[in-house]
């Protein structure tokens, strides 16, 4: 089934997430409904001289329980934590999709699961072993745990995907690039099914030191668009979608959750840290044009909203340039206020929230927004979510290096 422009249509038939406020999509949604905070005291490793002592860590994830039924991937339990999150989210998404496992037509399936940093926790452990504990060797699985494509390989093995399988890597845009690429592969008839998203787990001593040195972490919390915002809070997790060509999904009577209708991607080509206005604006325009949608049609926008001084202000300005007067009518929120900033995984988790918002006609809040920054004067759904008719949604991801990606979702085709 093709669009007016002749391309095949792509729908979402499965979603999976692992986050600090919910270890599955239903739990995440419940967490968002309750405006839960995933931010807590940093722990799980020696804090030594760290100054930033909070993070949005996942504290009750039991990989053995969650992955024990894996049949084809025999070593996933020995993988890095980031691969566990990816495997768990992909498993949830695949089971919801009702697709056969392993996939029925393996060369017509893709598995694009990215990560901003891969197995950083393994890296640190290995280097501590070598340089501090003078161990004679690293653990034999160190290499496989570290490589940034290992999550995609693990997921691909378990679900029997034999088509395009690799990781994307674009910092905070990683998951959105993965989903966008998978969207494109299905549209141009390369595959019919794709597992796409990203996973991240980088919270350790070295990462905290590196982020601390960049001076962009908040010591208090993640308060996007608020006057008091003073940086982001590192998070971790995974967000993965199962995308499928419309007719392929309809033929097997799949439950269609939504349609992916637009993808925009640009680069600022300007600054490694400070996001621009132009690049994000053009990415949003590109996604709308791709979707063939007037800006006024978007009801809910899941903002990148990192709670850094410059992102929230520039994102607000970019939204105003794209949406004009509609910018003030649009419900916008940064769910990072609740699940923290899971870096590469952010766009995957936020895509699931966009689809849930359409499903339930309810928009998630931006928590911690007691007093808005005067430069951020749009409707960010402060503190409590609310009922809101949601037909079309947009999800923004803007990464370090000025790498911008935007997805647009619509309702399940009638």
């Amino acid at each position, binding site marked *: 089934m093709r669009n007016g422009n002749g391309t095949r249509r792509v729908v979402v038939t499965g979603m999976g997430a692992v986050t600090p406020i919910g270890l599955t999509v239903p739990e995440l949604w419940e967490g968002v409904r309750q405006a839960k905070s995933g931010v807590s005291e940093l722990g799980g490793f020696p804090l030594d001289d760290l100054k930033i002592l909070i993070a949005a860590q996942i504290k009750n994830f039991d990989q053995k329980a969650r992955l024990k039924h894996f049949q084809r991937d*025999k*070593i996933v339990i*020995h993988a890095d934590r980031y691969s566990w999150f990816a495997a768990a989210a992909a498993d949830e998404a695949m089971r919801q999709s009702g697709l056969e496992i392993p996939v029925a037509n393996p060369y017509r399936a893709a598995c694009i699961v990215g990560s901003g940093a891969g197995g950083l926790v393994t890296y640190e452990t290995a280097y501590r072993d070598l340089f501090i504990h003078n161990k*004679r*060797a690293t653990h*034999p*699985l160190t290499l*496989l745990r570290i490589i940034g494509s290992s999550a995609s390989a693990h997921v691909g093995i378990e679900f029997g995907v034999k088509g395009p399988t690799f990781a994307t890597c674009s910092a905070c845009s990683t998951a959105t690039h993965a989903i966008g690429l998978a969207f494109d592969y299905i549209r141009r008839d390369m595959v019919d099914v794709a597992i796409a998203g990203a996973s991240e787990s980088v919270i350790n001593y070295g990462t905290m030191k590196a982020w601390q040195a960049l001076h962009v972490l908040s010591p208090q919390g993640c308060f996007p668009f608020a006057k008091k915002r003073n940086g982001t809070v590192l998070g971790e997790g995974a967000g993965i979608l199962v995308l499928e060509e419309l007719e392929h999904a309809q033929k097997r009577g799949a439950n269609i959750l939504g349609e992916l209708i637009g993808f925009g991607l640009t680069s600022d080509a300007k600054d490694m840290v400070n996001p621009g206005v132009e690049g994000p604006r053009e990415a949003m325009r590109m996604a709308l044009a791709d979707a063939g949608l007037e800006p006024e049609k978007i009801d809910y926008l899941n903002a990148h909203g990192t709670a850094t001084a410059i992102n929230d202000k520039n994102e607000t300005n970019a939204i105003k340039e794209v949406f004009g007067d509609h910018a003030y009518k649009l419900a916008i929120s940064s769910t990072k206020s609740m699940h923290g900033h899971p870096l590469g995984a952010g766009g995957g988790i936020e895509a699931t929230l966009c689809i849930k918002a359409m499903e339930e006609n309810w928009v998630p809040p931006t928590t911690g927004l007691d007093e808005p920054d005067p430069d951020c004067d749009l409707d960010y759904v402060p503190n409590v979510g609310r009922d809101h008719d949601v037909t079309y949604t947009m999800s923004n991801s803007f990464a370090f290096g000025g790498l911008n990606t935007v997805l647009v979702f619509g309702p399940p085709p009638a």
Partner: protein
Amino acid sequence: MDEVATKIVEILKKHMKEPRDDISLSTELQDLSIESLDLAMIVFDIEDSFGIEIPYNANEEVEDFKTVGSVVDKVRELIENKDGSTAAAGA
């Protein structure tokens, strides 16, 4: 089975998906469905336990890894060499 053999069987069982209790010195490793990656982890564990280094290349078929008994013999030999060289160094 002596201490070295018992320890090695313990390590093998730790890395088996379905550990068995009927492992003897004549058991072939391939009958334990140990794959190359498992072998790398087993070698790592044995090296750690006995403080030795096992010359092993995953690209080569190695006689020393044919049966449980051949692994035990190899490890015993490496332990003796190590002790020997330590004694020599001490002399």
